[in-house]
């Protein structure tokens, strides 16, 4: 564990800060606001139109940063298919944004970071995850983005998705554990070893990877309090498991700041001390979650998540949303500067700690506990993922029994049932994998064991 005591964790501070060009630090004593806007529909039709779209997003964001006095910001661009599929598009789009940020940095001294999040185009059932055309193009595009001036590279890889999806639909916690915890971890190692390698040749950080395809899928399928597709306790278990999986990128050399939608990042920060991005109450136009404040608790870079690129009454969305995350970051930075960071942190946390079981799990003292459970099993990707889920279950049951966390019958039933299934799983990875391999390849047509060296 990078931290001895969860109380040592606070927003804007990481054990291992990261420095990127144009003078931006993450985790070095201040929170950086992030903005992210998806290209307008239709701009993907040609390289030229997409490049212009990228420049326009950058320009709109940077000019607002200056207009409201933000000391620093990060611009993230999540690649659409074409940006990653054509490495030369990836290069040109990144370059266009880098030029804008550099101009503002030179003119005003505003610190600016540029994140390129490549798209994970790989499809298990179409060529597999390794060595396919899609796979090779991703590697090429990462390199082109580095060349063009990206400050860091992130991704949201999809290893284990086929099995996870099956698990979600059937409420099969073993499939969820196998999909995210085991298969996901294997693919992460493949993907990030390579990505770290490429980035190391440039002034570009290999930032990290979120389990969007797993834990976030569960969170969005679970939905709000009235959602009827997945139990919120089950989504919380998936989240705990995902921490063991997303940790792999850091083990492979990713430095952070970890990607914004990794709600598991608090756990990974507790273990490794790398800075993290997060999203929450200023990402309402993109996602609905039930913990808008809690995710601020130990954040180093505060994001809005992708929104439509269009005009609002208050200006174009890159401006408007940077203003939203910029003001929240300013509040956190004020708390840091005045010595009130821990109080504000605890208020953020407590606001959502019992709104929903997912918040209970991720509240930083509890997240810390899950982190500890993970490291106890070292590099055993199966056992540590299982331990994470079991500790998460304990956390939620304790809160429920203390009458702090209220649960519906459905939430409580699934929690109990899944816990006992998890407890009954074998203590050796080999046996577990054996069991899974007997069942899932048969039941899930899109699952390609070769993609994981199985």
């Amino acid at each position, binding site marked *: 564990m990078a931290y001895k005591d969860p109380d040592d964790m606070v927003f804007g501070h990481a054990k291992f800060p990261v420095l990127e060009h144009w003078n931006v630090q993450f985790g070095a004593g201040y929170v950086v606001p992030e903005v992210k806007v998806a290209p307008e*529909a239709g701009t993907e039709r040609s390289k030229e139109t997409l490049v212009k779209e990228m420049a326009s997003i950058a320009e709109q964001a940077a000019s607002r940063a200056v207009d409201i006095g933000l000391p620093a910001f990060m611009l993230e661009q999540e690649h659409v298919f074409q940006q990653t599929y054509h490495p030369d598009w990836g290069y040109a789009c990144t370059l266009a944004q880098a030029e804008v940020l550099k101009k503002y940095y030179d003119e005003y001294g505003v610190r600016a970071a540029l994140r390129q999040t490549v798209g994970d185009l790989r499809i298990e059932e179409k060529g597999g995850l390794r060595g396919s055309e899609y796979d090779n193009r991703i590697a090429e595009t990462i390199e082109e983005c580095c060349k063009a001036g990206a400050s860091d590279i992130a991704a949201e890889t999809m290893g284990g998705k086929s099995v996870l999806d099956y698990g979600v639909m059937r409420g099969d916690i073993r499939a969820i554990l196998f999909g995210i915890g085991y298969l996901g971890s294997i693919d992460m190692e493949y993907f990030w070893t390579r990505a770290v390698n490429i980035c190391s040749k440039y002034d570009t950080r290999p930032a990290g990877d979120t389990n969007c395809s797993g834990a976030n899928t569960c969170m969005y399928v679970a939905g709000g309090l009235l959602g009827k*597709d997945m139990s919120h306790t089950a989504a919380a278990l998936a989240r705990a498991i995902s921490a063991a999986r997303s940790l792999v990128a850091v083990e492979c050399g990713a430095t952070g700041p970890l990607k914004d939608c990794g709600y598991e990042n608090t756990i990974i920060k507790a273990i490794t001390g790398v800075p993290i991005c997060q999203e929450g109450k200023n990402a309402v136009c993109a996602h609905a979650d039930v913990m808008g404040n809690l995710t601020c608790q130990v954040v180093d870079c505060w994001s809005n998540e992708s929104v439509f690129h269009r005009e609002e009454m208050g200006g174009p969305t890159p401006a408007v949303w940077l203003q939203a995350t910029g003001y929240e970051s300013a509040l956190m930075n004020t708390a840091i500067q005045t010595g009130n960071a821990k109080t504000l942190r605890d208020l953020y946390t407590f*606001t959502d700690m019992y709104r929903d079981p997912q918040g209970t799990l991720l509240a930083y003292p509890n997240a810390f506990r899950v982190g500890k459970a993970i490291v106890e099993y070292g590099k055993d990707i199966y056992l540590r993922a299982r331990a994470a889920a079991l500790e998460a279950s304990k956390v939620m049951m304790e809160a429920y029994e203390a009458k702090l966390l209220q649960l519906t019958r459905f939430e409580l039933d699934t929690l109990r049932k899944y816990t006992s299934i998890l407890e009954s799983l074998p203590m050796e990875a080999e046996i577990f994998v054996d069991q899974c391999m007997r069942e899932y390849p048969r039941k899930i047509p899109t699952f390609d064991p070769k993609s994981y060296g199985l």
Partner: protein
Amino acid sequence: MAFSEWAKKADFDMMFKRYNVIIEGPAIKPEDDPDVKKVLPKDEPFKSLAMAVIFGDTEKAVQATKSALDMVSPLDVIEKGLAKGMDAVSALYAKGAYFLPDIMLSADAMTAAMAVAEQKLGRAREKKGTVVSFVAEGDPHDIGKNLVVMFLKANGFEAVDLGRDVPDKEVIEAVKKYKPVMLTGTALMTTTMTAFPRVAKALQEQGISVPVFGCGGGAVKRDFVESYDMGVYGVKAFHAPKLAEAALAGKSWKDLRKEYPKVVGEFVAEYADRM
């Protein structure tokens, strides 16, 4: 970390309310639910068949089917027994008493039992109709599409699943081949949903008309879908079978745009101005 102290003095009701817990009535057995009662057969062997589906118990469903087949026809087993169970499950889902995995398990039980009945029947029972489903080219987000396919199957449709990242051409080929009563497209990105108008146009140009082209997914919004012919904006996956049924009953995409909330039988915020 003052949490335990704070927890003692804070009135949580001023911070948040877990309405899901607040509105939860007493636990009642599925078969006691008034909406289930309406569809549940009263007589045996149908009741047991339906109940096995309601509980998502594959083994029991197969068992009950086997013994029922001694008494009644395979078609009756399916239509008066198993299918009624599935109707009950849909009702429970719609009101929030059942959740997605429950439906999946019930669908599994239904499928297994039906296989037994069809074997006796000597052929597959006729499906209500065929629907073709795909995720747009360049788009990997397929959970919504998977749900659509699942709900269609659970409701007796033949659902042809083309997968994700599907080139326009393949979609058009499939429509030619299967002549579906409905085509469904899912896209979650601004830059992939542009496949829908392309596909719609290509179909028109080739003179192929589909009664309804249901389009949905994250970034897709109603005004976008209504900007090209055939498109009907789909909000929830479980609306898909209702749309397909309406299409079977002769409704056109123009009708469905206007009558969406009526057709799916519930309040739909996205169509609030057409209630």
